[in-house]
């Protein structure tokens, strides 16, 4: 794959991380305030962005899997994969408190953690 395209993709994903973190926190706050309708709409958007994020990561893996592995991405991927099942379980049980907890203290904090660790994934080349 063209190096410029990969670079561009990395930059886009790089930008998406704080946005996803912020959005997850906002959705959590909406759910905690009882704004379930707006909260679930927001969650839908977060999930769509996450889908895009994962597709981007898949492309990067195909193009430069070793570098990503080395960068610690696999840890992030693993962590995110652990969060999704309880998120969907909470959604199914209509448990907005747990859902808000997962968004704020699992999803948002996971992104914040990786970002504050220096964005290992994003610096590699």
């Amino acid at each position: 794959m063209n190096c410029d395209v990969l670079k561009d993709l990395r930059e886009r994903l790089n930008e998406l991380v704080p946005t996803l973190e912020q959005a997850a926190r906002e959705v959590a706050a909406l759910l905690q305030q009882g704004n379930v309708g707006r909260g679930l709409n927001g969650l839908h958007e977060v999930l769509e962005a996450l889908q895009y994020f994962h597709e981007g990561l898949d492309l990067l893996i195909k193009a430069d899997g070793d570098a990503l592995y080395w960068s610690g991405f696999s840890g992030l991927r693993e962590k995110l994969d652990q969060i999704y099942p309880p998120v969907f379980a909470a959604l199914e049980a209509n448990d907005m408190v747990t859902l808000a907890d997962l968004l704020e203290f699992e999803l948002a904090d996971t992104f914040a953690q990786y970002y504050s660790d220096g964005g290992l994934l994003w610096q590699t080349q």
Partner: protein
Amino acid sequence: MADTVIEFMEGKRGLPTARACHPNGVAFLLHSAHDPVAEARRLVERYPSLKEAGAVVCFGLGLGYHVHEVLRVAKPNVQVLVIESHPQLREWFQQNPENIQSIPWERVTITDREDVIKTFVYRKRENFRDGLVMVEHPASLRLNPEFYDTISTRVRDYISLLLIDMGTAQTLNYFVQENNFANLKAITSDPGISSLKGAFAGKPAVVVAAGPSLSKNIDLLAEAKNKSVIISVGTALKAMLAKGIHPDLVVTLDPTELNYKLFEGLAPAEEFLCYEPQTHYKIPPIFDGRRFVFNSFSSCFTLWLKALYGDKGYIDPGGSVAIAAFGIACLIGANPIVFIGQDLAFTGGYTHSKGTAYENRKADLTSSSMHMFEVPAIGGGKVFTMRNFHSFIVRFEELFAQHKDRLIIDATEGGALKRGAKVMTFREAIDQHFNEEFQVLKIVNELHHKNQPDPAVRERIIKEFNKTARKYKGLIRKLEETLSIAKKVEKLSNLAEKADGKKAQAGSALARGNLDLLKKRAEQLNRKIKSVNAETKLTNLLDMLTIETEFAPPLPEDATLKEQVKQINAVYGLYLESAKLMRKQMENAVKDSLSTNGIQSAEVCESC
């Protein structure tokens, strides 16, 4: 979700949280397992007006994190009502040692009971003046959505009932007091309704109200005569007499001239009047010698009067004469109690039945008024009602729930559906339950005769009125002095303001002298006010006439002297007028209503 079990557990940071577990396997958290305090803060941020509110109703308690937050954010005098349906949560919160210490319990009420909610609304009404905020704890609502749905409607109903009562009180209190005095002669010579207690145990009674559907089955009342106790509200009497049907008891309690118009020109021959002392004073004489008194309304003034003439029996008025009629049906022991004409809705667009004084009155159902709305109807579908009718429906439903030992039949054949009443036609009710004949008026007459009041009561009241009227003379003098000093303070305060405006004169001897005098007068005013306020019994007795002071907005803490004097003038001016009126009414009562000779009235005049 009655079987839901609450599991209490430690959260990830050591704070307690809870999970609701339903027997079907569904479970959900009531609070964040990570940071329930921050979660509660976010919830409460949604209600910015909390900072100004005088009263807060929280729907759902959970573990009370949001209640703590409400108390932290709101004013220090806020009153908080927490409605929680789950006993485990109420228990946990009230027994938690941390809450026992940190919650200001005199400001927090936790309940799931409608009567406690109603009491809260009425007792804390002064707090409602500063605004009410309703806070919903979403996870708690999920525990019992139907309960919270019903209870939030109830809270709104109680508040509108309070507003109706307050509005009614402000408009009618003058007449209420006047009628209480004017009716004293009747009250002291009539037996109380308690004379009829249990007199018709197990016998059917019909409560006849004047709703539009009464025209459908009024003719059947003739069949109910002497097979049931027929209790009519005042408004339905005209329609009944026009059909040649005589009720056994007629109930009335409205203090206005309009109520008298319903009776004017009628010639009741055998029926007994059951009246509240506030009833328009021209009505009791129409039923001379055939009356029972009952008490429904209480104020310091009416309680004082009641203590003088003795207990006559309490009947819950619920804001409507039909509710009072139902109370009387319960008191006499009737069972079943059958309602007719109790639409509490605009059946066919009409407000009242044919044959009543309001027979042609139609409701404007096209109106977009917020006071008009639809409720489930008898026979299916919806029917239009209005806010105060709806508050009566609510009260009836409460009362029906309290009287589960009676069969309550709604044979209105139209109007609003009421929970707790069995719906059937009047024909069916008569066929099924009105099987035995009994001489209703004979029994009522005997009890009336047997329970005549002690004639000494009247003498006792005359003495007390004379004594109290003399005391009011002293209070009136004090109030006049208070207002006179307040006027002087106002004048001096104006002068001081002017002097302050002219800088050159500000430090002059004249200005200093003015300020000294102002200070002296203000101190004098304070002393006088204290002396008036010490006359608690006399000022409390004026509560019916001074109700406005209860709803007046409080002065801000940093109110200027001028604002304070303005308030003093308004409040004590009203007390002065009320004290003068009270004294005059007492004297007139002795002269016109109570006195059997001229001696007592002369004694009052002596004390003028």
